[in-house]
């Protein structure tokens, strides 16, 4: 089904079991840390971001979305040596925007998901860049080509991942 504009009542709202709600983000964090150890190029893939987008869009609740983003982002921060909040702030905003978009749009097909993930990846990267440069004074350089390529890679991985995660959705 392509992107469709619907009213809030028409879109389907999903929920997840408690094990899925806790286990999937934890698994994403674990996979991110573990696979990056073997392949440094995997660190361009942001599994916690993909999980944030998926949960936020499926639940279609902005508060739930921003809290999911905040928790996953802070957990991701805790694994790095960086100050807590860099990923937390970025993912809070993405979670809020994704769930707000989810209220308006029903994104089920692969093409739409690629575009949505690419867009949120760029938003996440730009918020992270601003916070990291502005508040923590990390020496980062912005690269459009790198951002778009990473975004596309995340989008492709995201489409595959969402396909499997769809199986955990429970109708309300």
């Amino acid at each position, binding site marked *: 089904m392509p992107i469709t504009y619907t009213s809030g009542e028409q879109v389907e709202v999903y929920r997840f079991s408690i094990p899925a709600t806790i286990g999937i983000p934890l698994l994403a964090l674990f996979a991110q*840390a573990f696979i990056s*150890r073997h392949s*440094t190029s995997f660190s361009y893939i942001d599994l916690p971001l993909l999980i944030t987008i998926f949960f936020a869009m499926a639940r279609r609740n902005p508060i739930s979305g921003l809290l999911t983003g905040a928790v996953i982002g802070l957990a991701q921060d805790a694994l790095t040596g*960086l100050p807590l909040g860099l990923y937390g702030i970025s993912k809070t905003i993405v979670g809020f925007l994704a769930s707000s978009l989810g209220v308006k749009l029903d994104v089920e097909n692969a093409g739409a998901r690629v575009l949505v993930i690419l867009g949120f990846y760029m938003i996440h990267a730009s918020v992270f860049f601003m916070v990291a440069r502005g508040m923590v004074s*990390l020496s980062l350089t912005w690269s459009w080509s790198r951002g778009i390529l990473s975004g596309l890679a995340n989008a492709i991985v995201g489409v595959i991942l969402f396909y499997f995660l769809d199986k955990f959705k429970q109708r309300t």
Partner: protein
Amino acid sequence: MESVLGRYRNLIILVGVLFLQVLGLAVQVKRSGNDAENTRLIRIWVVDAITPFERGLVWIESTSSSLWHNYIYLRGVRAENRELKQQIEQMRIEQVRLSEDASQAHRLQNLLAFKEQYIAKTVAAQVIGSSGSDLSRSVYIDKGEDDGLKRDMAVITADGIVGKILLVYPSTSQVLLINDQTSGVGVILEKSRLQGVLRGTNNGEVVLERIMSDEQVAPGERVLTSGGDQIFPKGLPVGTVTQVSNGKDLFLNIKIKPATDLSKLEEVLVLVEKQDREPVAEDSSHHRAADILAERLPSVPDKPPADVKATTGTATNAAKPGSPVKTAATTTTPTQPANATGTPQVAKNHAIANDHAAPAASTIPKALISGKPSSTTKPAAASAKPSDNLQTGTPSKAVVPPANPPSNLNSPKPAPAAQTNPSTPPQTEDNPQ
């Protein structure tokens, strides 16, 4: 009012959550020295939730790998074994040469009251995970507080340095790699002896900073730790220079290829104990140069005077065994011939003289000290004033060892041939003869 709050409820909560995080971030940045410690609780929760899985998976991975390589896939092991044996033989030969050089260097360092840091104790650890972010180059290892690890301990491999411990948890630790942009290591270039600071960049490269642009640095030069950061002991391999270009602010832009492949770390060593000690395991009290030489150079107490004469060649005025020790000690004159050049011959002569004049602490000839032919060095017969050729009361710190030190300085027990036959040159590569 209620309707406004209800209408913008989501936005207000978003702003509130963001405000809290920004506030937390600001507090951490302000306490930048120890920000990771301030947020320790959250980090412990996450690390405790993630690392058991990583530990389990690494265990399965390593067990299955060792099962395969140690019991099943043994193709080529015999050939490899033969090659390794040959390699061991070659390395043994090399070791003999190097140990000679090392012991010589240690003795010279000891003369200068030089202190070195030695690696006293290490703990082997396995890498179980990473930060998962390309902006934070750090890995997790399976050893922590319970194993005696502490913050800022150095982490190395057999190839070179890896990083330092950033955070310690009960059973795991986070290691900040040298290619992280927040890391810094004091290093020295092996040949040019230029000192600089090694830093990581945001794209994971390693660069050497603080080398002035008028210095000559060639690609391929090795980089070692300088010990100046008080984390890594001096002399550990860091990497090699790959690219040199002019940077900004009058400094060179030097790229380094790390000696250790930081993207494929599996096992590492954590330096849990370092020792500051003298290079040789001897009494570290303040020795005078002559004392040290007297202790180490060979003695020939039971030889008749004629033999001593023959041994020392022209050293006819060496303190004779039969002569009173005290007199010899207080009035010993340099015994080398006029053409003495600070070669092993000179040292030998002096050693013999000192042997019979044991406490001649302040009577080391200048020729021996400087290692250069001394115009003031005269045969003993012509030496009316002993003080002309003596360095009296000079502290050992000021003593400069000879440029080409005598070979019998190399070993506390020199070869007998070197003691008895003056015409036989010592077996050192830099023998001036």
